[in-house]
């Protein structure tokens, strides 16, 4: 009995430890709020951002597009999938297949949306599919950043994810097929190692040190209306991943966690 207890406890510890290595789909570009338009680089990397740890191999994404909105103009959708070029991204522990492109941004909101190829996670025995959104604004003229794009799983920001000062709160609404997901579980992680686009690698030095694993990956829950709130303690990019929003979803006959990811970039008030 004691042995069984120890085994169960051991498994429980493992189960609790595993989420510390959370997966985050990134659509990385250095700036979320730009003063002037121009060409911006985009890197699609599936990784563990706080530790700059194990970077997973991405397959060819199902969809990658941008929705541009400016003022009261009608949204314009542009397919970016044909522009993607494969690359290898180097983490602190390995390197993984990733994608890159450049995009010419003019004024307004540019909502980048990625529907990736499901990733088989051997360790967990299920697929992961993180539909990801990043919003870049040029010139300060807002567009439809607060509107759902219509992804199957989506986090809709309730504040501009590109105008947050450090210390402000950020709220988002978790949607599955356009409907709020009450009490959705959300993992939050800080992009602690700066992505060096010229080297296609993370910087070795992190910006923050976690005193304990719970700080690496923070878990929060949405309320009954699918709304979550997070206070931003440090400048930089923060990722939010709402997990398993469609519990019955499968891919190739196996369980697939259908997640929704959004990133924000906070700036120090100086």
């Amino acid at each position, binding site marked *: 009995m004691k042995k069984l207890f120890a085994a169960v406890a051991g498994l429980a510890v493992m189960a609790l430890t595993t989420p510390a290595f959370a997966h985050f789909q990134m659509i990385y570009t250095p700036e979320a709020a730009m003063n002037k338009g121009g060409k911006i680089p985009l890197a699609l990397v599936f990784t563990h951002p706080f530790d700059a740890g194990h970077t997973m191999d991405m397959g060819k994404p199902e969809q990658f597009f941008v929705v541009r909105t400016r*003022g*009261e103009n009608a949204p314009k959708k542009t397919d970016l999938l044909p522009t993607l070029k494969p690359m290898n991204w180097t983490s602190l522990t390995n390197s993984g297949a990733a994608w890159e492109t450049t995009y010419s941004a003019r004024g*307004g909101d540019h909502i980048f949306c990625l529907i990736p190829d499901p990733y088989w996670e051997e360790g967990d025995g299920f697929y992961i599919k993180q539909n990801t959104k990043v919003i870049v604004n*040029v010139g300060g*003229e807002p*567009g439809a950043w607060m509107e759902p794009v219509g992804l199957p799983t989506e986090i809709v920001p309730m504040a501009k994810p590109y105008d947050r000062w450090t210390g402000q709160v950020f709220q988002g609404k978790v949607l599955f097929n356009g409907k709020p997901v009450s009490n959705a579980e959300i993992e939050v992680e800080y992009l602690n190692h700066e992505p060096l686009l010229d080297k296609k690698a993370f910087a070795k030095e992190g910006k923050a040190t976690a005193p304990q694993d719970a700080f690496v990956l923070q878990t929060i829950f949405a309320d009954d209306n699918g709304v979550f709130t997070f206070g931003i303690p440090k400048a930089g990019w923060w990722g939010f991943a709402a997990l398993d929003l469609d519990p019955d979803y499968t891919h190739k006959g196996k369980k697939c966690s259908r997640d929704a990811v959004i990133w924000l970039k906070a700036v120090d008030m100086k």
Partner: protein
Amino acid sequence: MRFTGSKGTGSKYDPQETVLVNQRRKCMTIYRASLMFGILILGLIFAPVSMAHTPLCSCYDNGDGTITCEGGFSDGSSASGVELRVESTDGKVLIKGKMSEDSEYTFDKPSDAYKVLFDAGEGHMVEVDGKEITE
């Protein structure tokens, strides 16, 4: 608000009515002063509203001899119909037009130095130097 209350309690049965009337007069002065102060505050409140409506204009070189200027406001409202002028550096108007339904205006790039003026009325003007317009 407390002053309104004292008005109510200052009924004719009050033995200290004269005192109260004096107080009321004093109160009226304070009331007027606070009313004026209130108007001042209101003015201050409304001033930032117009600031929350900052005009924005960005221009891009389309690489085909034309320039497109996109206008708008920081609150996201449309700039459709707003006047746009292209002027030479000495202030001569070269091109004059209005922002389209999509709040943009495209014109042929002048051969000499120029500036773009997005004119949404007094205090709502944006000037863009032609030298700073790139692709």
